[in-house]
Structure formats: structure tokens, C-alpha cells
């Protein structure tokens, strides 16, 4: 049980607003860790600080035993943290395969070898048959899976998923859940996800952290967390789950 990712007292302020206020947690190697909370709780801010897209005001972020605090996003990715975007951003004019090759070229210098690696990832995500389609012509569920594919192709140690289920129908959500669970089981890939879709959180996460107004109000197993009165009050509502 070693911590792959540790956040120590991380805070972020936007002028007067404290978006993330002294958040600490550890993500253990090989687990699926979910961060949930109501809109404006600071989830995406937290996520962007881990990914290097935002700098934290204070605190420390440690990945694989080394500080990644303040590193730019590309350097964070090269350390082994890949991310997806809440609003999908595949490279629109490139083919599905080329999108994933870009990711694969991070660790692989040879283009032909990167193509092979990309194809393997595309098979994994049921996108192989659509590999020559232009990314902008894909449906939203396909684009979401394409983003996951591009991130996976960089061969990360930690995968950050920012609301990857948002906008998906329940059947599509189940498909994504199955894919992520299989990848986690087979390769031991650690996943940190931000999610609103409780159906996915309950099915995937081994541990859940609940944020509200930038502070941690609960953490533990999904079953514990959904019964926590503070979580029910601030986020889930009395009739949920």
C-alpha cells in the first residue's frame, strides 16, 4: 500500500473565493479513487492542479515520491499522469488513429511502433473500426473514449478522468465503466476520477472523497460515503442511491 499520488494541504484561491481549501489525500497504487461533490465544490480546480494546468497557492503534490508541484502540464504528463478534459478536446481534423498516435509518441520515438501501440489501445476501447474516421465526425461517446484512448496511449501510471461519463446514456456509461474496470484489473493502472454519475462511482471506485466548498467533508468506501449524513445533506439529497 504505497501512495502513488499524495496531496498535502493543497489550496487554491481565485481572488476572494477559496476554491480548494487545504485538501489532503493519498491515492494508492492500483486503486480507482473518485472525487465527488456538488457543482462548484472545487473538484475541477483540484484536478487541474494535479494535472499542472493550474498552480496551487500552497501545499504540495507528490507523485511517485517526487514533487510535481508547479510543473507545467506537459511535464506532468511525461512524469506519468495522463488526463482527459471535461469538455472533450480531441484533435478535431486528425483521424482517430492519428489522435492516439500523438499520445503513443510520448514514450515511443518510432512512428511505426507508435502506430502499433495506438492500434492496440484502439482495440481496447472499441474504436479500432473507426480508426480512419476524422475525430470531429465522431459522436460524443466515441469522442470521450477517444480521449481516454489518447491518454492511455501515453502509458501513464495515473489516469485522471474529468467527468468522463457526463452526457453519456446509461448503456454507454456501463460500457465505459466496464472498459475502465478491465484496464484497471489487467494492468493495475491507477485511476483518479471526478464524477457526477453516482452509478459509475459506485461501480468503479474503491475509495471516494467528497468535496464541498473546497473542503473535504467525507472520505472512505463508496458504501460508507453515501450513508454519511453530511454527504447526503450537501450533495446527494435524501432520496439518492
Amino acid at each position, binding site marked *: 500500500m504505497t501512495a502513488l499520488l499524495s496531496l498535502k494541504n493543497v489550496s487554491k484561491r481565485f481572488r476572494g473565493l477559496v476554491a480548494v481549501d487545504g485538501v489532503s489525500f493519498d491515492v494508492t497504487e492500483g486503486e480507482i479513487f473518485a472525487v465527488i461533490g456538488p457543482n462548484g465544490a472545487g473538484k475541477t480546480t483540484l484536478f487541474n492542479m494535479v494535472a499542472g494546468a493550474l498552480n496551487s497557492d500552497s501545499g504540495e503534490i507528490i507523485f511517485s515520491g517526487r514533487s510535481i508541484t508547479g510543473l507545467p502540464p*506537459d511535464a506532468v504528463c511525461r512524469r506519468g499522469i495522463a488526463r482527459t*478534459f471535461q469538455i472533450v*478536446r480531441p484533435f*478535431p481534423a486528425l*483521424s482517430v488513429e492519428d489522435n492516439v*498516435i500523438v499520445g503513443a*509518441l*510520448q514514450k515511443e520515438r518510432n*512512428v511505426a511502433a507508435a502506430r502499433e501501440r495506438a492500434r492496440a489501445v484502439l482495440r481496447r476501447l472499441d474504436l479500432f473500426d473507426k480508426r480512419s474516421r476524422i475525430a470531429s465526425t465522431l459522436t460524443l461517446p466515441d469522442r470521450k473514449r477517444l480521449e481516454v484512448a489518447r491518454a492511455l496511449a501515453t502509458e501513464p501510471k495515473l489516469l485522471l478522468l474529468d467527468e468522463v461519463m457526463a452526457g453519456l446514456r446509461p448503456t454507454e456509461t456501463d460500457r465505459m465503466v466496464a472498459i475502465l474496470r478491465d484496464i484497471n484489473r489487467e494492468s493495475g493502472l491507477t485511476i483518479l476520477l471526478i464524477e457526477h454519475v453516482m452509478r459509475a462511482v459506485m461501480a468503479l471506485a474503491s475509495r471516494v472523497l467528497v468535496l464541498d466548498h473546497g473542503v473535504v467533508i467525507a472520505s472512505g468506501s463508496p458504501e460508507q460515503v453515501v450513508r454519511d449524513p453530511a454527504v447526503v445533506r450537501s450533495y446527494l439529497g435524501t432520496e439518492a442511491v
Partner: protein
Amino acid sequence: MKRAIARIAEGRSNFAIAWLAALLVALTVAPWFVSDYLITVLIVIFYLAFTGQAWNIMMGFAGQLSLGHALYAGLGAYITAALFTRYGIAPWIGFLVAAPVAAMCGAIIGFLAFRFGVSGVYFAILTIAFAEFARIGFDHLTVVNASAGLFLPVAQYTHNDLWRLRGHPTMFYYVMLTATAVAFIICNALLRSRMGYFWLAIREDEQAARAAGIDTFRYKMYAVMISAAMTSFGGVFYAFFYNNLFPEQVFNITRSIEMILGPIIGGIGTLFGPILGAFVLTGLAESVTGVMAAFGFDLPGAKQIFYGICLLLVVVALPEGIWPWLARRLGIKERDS
């Protein structure tokens, strides 16, 4: 025919290479069959195809709009011409000096822009500004005769001197034909390389490219430097073909615009676009001039108006340029075209 072109575009089979070779052979033997006038037109086409190809690396591949490429061509022209006239240094050696200087200038502009987050149209304005600095600066640079102009000695040459680039237009024809072919090969290799993929990613979505681990600053710098160094060779040709250089002309924004019209018309980001665009624009413009001359009209500026109309038509009807449209019609895959 259709499949043959498709194969060329994919650049795989021996048959495709044979087809491209046939085109090259046709252009190689052309000087024996066509008039001197047409040779001159073709030289201009090659020059525009070559510089368009170089510009396309920055804009078409890496998505960085430069409107000041006259700077790099001008540096290539002035440096090689000055070294030649003052010290008798051959242009090929001069190019080995000019290319790194042009790349350095590109690097300075790139550094200022990319380090301080100047992008899009503001980046384009910065490139214009530097070309203008050069224009005004060279106008006062007495070492290259300032605004009086730098002239290369012109004499009747008994034979073509390829090493010193003195001779008949036919020699320049072959020099620029070779340069265009080499530029095509280089760009094709770049586009298929690891760096080529990173450039396309940056062009498509810089933030997503960074999230995929790409050091966007570094790869944008490479794009500017390679593009600048390549463009400077266009300047070498310009100096030794026209034999006179005036800052007012060489660094004029018109030179920059000329270079980018071909790729825009032909298809930004494609390999065939800059070549096709140069042929279409220059070919049609020359025909218009010819037709008007035949009917006894002499309208200065008619060519420019024609350029404008062509641009307008393409922008309205084929916003991606002629090549992507043509490629679709011929059933060729757009990517790598």
C-alpha cells in the same frame, strides 16, 4: 489514373514513385521544348512553390501564422549577395551562413512570442513588425548600399557556373526545380515524423497537446527555425536570379503575401497544396496578362486584381483550398496528401 494519383498521395507503392518520377522527368525535359518566356514563368512558379512549402511548415503543420516571411528570404538574399560581391564567396557557402542566421531570427521572434504568450493574430503582427524592422534597417545599412540597392555583377556568361550561380535562366530553372523537389521530400518526411505529429497536435489544440505531454514551446520553435532556414534559400535564388536587391522590395510585405497565397489557394497543411497553388495562381495570372496583351490592353495592376478574385473565389467556394477538394474528388485520403 485515379488510383495512380491515390497511390502517389499515399506515397507507398513503386508505381506511385514512378508516376511522380514521370512528372519530374516531364519538367526536367521541358526546357528543350518550351519558350524562354515559359521557362521564366516556371521559375517563378517553382520559387513560389518552394517558399510556400517552407511557410507551410509553420502555418500548415504547426499552426503558427507568419506574415513576415520576407524577412527570412531577404536575409538569405542579402547575406549571400553581400558575401559574393564583397568577398567572392560562392552562394552555396553563403547559404550555410544565411540559413543559421535566418533560423536565429526566427528563433528570436518565436522566443518572444511563445514565451510571453503572443499567439494568433498578435503573433502574425509580430512577424510583420520584424520584417518591417529589417526593411527599414537595411534601408540604412551602408555595408549593403542601403536604399541605393545591392547589385550583382551581370555579364554575358559563356557557360553556366552552377557553383557561383551565374548563367542562363535554364540553370536557375533546374536549381529551383531541384529545390522544390527537395522541399517536398523534406516536408513529407517531417510530416510523417514524430515531430510532424506533434506539430499537427499543436495546430489542432495546443492545450490538449500539452496534456498529451508535448513540450509545445520547443516544437513551435523548431517549426519556426526550420521554416526560416528553408525560406532563406528562396532568397538566395532571388538575389542571384534578379541580380539586384532593394530593401524596399526584398523586405516588402508583398513578398510575404506572395509566398502564402499559393498554400492558401492550394490547401494549407497539405504537401501538394503549395505546389498546386503556385501553378494555379501564377499560371492563371500569366494567362490573363497574355490574353490582355493579345487584345491590346495594358492595365497595370490587373494581375493583383486577378489574385484578389482568385483568393475570394477559393475562400468562398473552397475554404480548405483546391487540393483537399481535388483529393476528395479523386478519392484520395486527405491526411498525408
